[in-house]
């Protein structure tokens, strides 16, 4: 089954509750799908709709050729019949059942066979020796492994991960992200992970959907979404900090009005260009002579972080608003250089790193 399984998810979901509207269409053949969005964006609701534990007004949900929901044909499979595994934010382990009972809870067939299969799964997830413990006696990371073991043992066609790392703290979160990829390595079906963390999804997903206010703003290959977000909201969600309105002066020249500079480009400026974005890590410090596409600035504030320095700077533009403060984040070699030579006279924007936004 590995590698040969057809993986094709189609989910067209429409729902209206109060003044929130969810209109989401996801079509993907990727094995690892990410949904990025802030809280309240409708990303978890999308997952719950696919699993059948949330009502859907209209739409169509299909895994490969199996229809789970079709409002036109009045098909609405019960969650029990969907064969979709769901990992909840708080893992939802059954508190009165032991680890083994939890893993066996969803299994069909003879108890003896199930026990053997469940024990194998526990072993695979490095939980052997814990089978008689109650969930409350386990660490957060172990609980997450139990939750995943409990899902995997039912052999679902699709696995949904709802903010899987949000209940974990710092160090463990990083470790579990790596572990999760490892545990899912041999899983032949598709996995959707929902998160508000761009780092988690950048690491996890091949294809990314960015959701805001119940709608998909942008989707595509994860790396492409980060390098070319197209929309200003998407750029913000992928972590871009600096934005400016743009006036197109000619085919290859634009004015970044919020920063008070003109930028010369080698490529043609697209007609639809309305804004540009620039990531805080990508400015190049320039000492001495002004080069092309440089910003002169005044330093407003410095934040010292363990491994980087964050400079908040005011561009040279005459009239100035507080939210026009630019962020320049410096780390590693560059940080050493700045510490030796002092603050640069200019920050240079490189064309490759300019995000062209609508």
């Amino acid at each position, binding site marked *: 089954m590995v590698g040969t399984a057809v993986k094709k998810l189609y989910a067209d979901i429409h729902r209206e509750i109060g003044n929130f509207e969810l209109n989401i269409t996801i079509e993907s053949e990727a094995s690892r799908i990410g949904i990025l969005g802030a809280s309240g964006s409708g990303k978890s609701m999308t997952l*719950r709709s696919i*699993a*059948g*534990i949330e009502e859907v007004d209209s739409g169509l949900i299909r895994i490969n050729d199996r229809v789970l929901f079709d409002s036109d044909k009045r098909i609405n499979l*019960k*969650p*029990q*019949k*969907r*064969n*979709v*595994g*769901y990992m*909840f*934010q*708080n893992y*939802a*382990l*059954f*508190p*009165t*059942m032991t680890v083994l009972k939890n893993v066996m*809870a*969803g299994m*069909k067939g003879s108890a003896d066979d199930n026990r053997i299969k469940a024990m194998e799964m526990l072993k695979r997830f490095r939980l052997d020796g814990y089978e008689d413990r109650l969930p409350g006696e386990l660490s957060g990371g172990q609980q997450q492994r139990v939750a995943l073991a*409990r*899902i995997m043992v*039912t052999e679902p066609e699709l696995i949904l991960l709802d903010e899987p790392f949000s209940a974990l703290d710092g160090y463990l979160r990083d470790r579990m992200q790596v572990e999760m990829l490892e545990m899912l390595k041999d899983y032949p079906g598709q996995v959707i992970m929902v998160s508000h963390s761009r780092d988690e999804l950048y690491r996890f997903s091949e294809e990314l959907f960015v959701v805001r206010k119940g709608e998909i703003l942008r989707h595509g290959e994860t790396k492409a979404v980060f390098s070319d977000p197209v929309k200003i909201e998407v750029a913000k969600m992928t972590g871009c900090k600096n934005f400016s309105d743009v006036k197109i002066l000619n085919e290859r020249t634009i004015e970044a009005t919020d920063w008070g500079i003109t930028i010369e480009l080698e490529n043609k400026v697209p007609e639809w260009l309305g804004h540009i974005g620039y990531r805080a890590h990508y400015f190049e410090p320039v000492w001495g002579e002004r080069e092309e596409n440089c910003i002169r600035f005044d330093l407003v504030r410095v934040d010292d972080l363990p491994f980087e320095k964050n400079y908040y700077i005011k561009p040279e533009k005459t009239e100035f608003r507080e939210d026009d403060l630019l962020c320049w984040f410096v780390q590693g070699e560059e940080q050493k250089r700045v510490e030796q030579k002092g603050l640069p006279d200019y920050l240079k924007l490189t064309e490759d790193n300019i995000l062209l936004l609508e």
Partner: protein
Amino acid sequence: MSTFTQLAGSLDWSPLWISLKTGVVATIISFFLGLWAARKVIKKDYRTKSILDGILTLPMVLPPTVAGFFLLLIFSRRRAFGIFLNDTFNIQVVHTWLGCIIAATVIAFPLMYRNARAAFEQIDANLVYAGRTLGMSELAIFWRIVVPTAGPGIASGTILTFARAMGEYGATSMLAGNIPGKTGTVSQRIAMVIQDGDYMTAGFWVVIVLLITFFAVFLINIITGKHMKNVRKW
């Protein structure tokens, strides 16, 4: 003390057995009915919930004699339903042990229902959803996840129901009467001997009731105690 032992020796113990039997049967009925009603009610929207909740709680807040009055209206052998029961199934409620059970169940049921409902409402809905996505049947989810998780609340509800059912007086006296050896419960015996001025016998029964009741409350604390340990004092 010796008078007490003499008394215990010559005493008619039937009220204790009638009360215990009534308590046990009424508790079993209330247990299943209460869980079922609680499950139904929490599914409803807020308005229906409020109305249903009011109706189901009513027997607990009404004076038991008022409940007894309604029960008599329903089951009296001079009225339609009572006649129907008697003629069709040969079932008599008034002045029978069945009357004791019905009266005790009606009065004690709300305790079971309310405790179960409160316990169910505390349950993380994700547990139920998880059960569903794992393919568990609704019945399995209810008995294997919901009820055990709501365990302490349900247990204390059950014990309170038992204590209330065992001590029922008002509605029982109206519906079942106080027929010695048949419907004469402990509570009714106490009232009866006090009317006769026999404070010694009354006192004896009072001690027994106190013991049973204290034991019941003690049991609740043991069952819920595990969770109480983690509660911070304030």
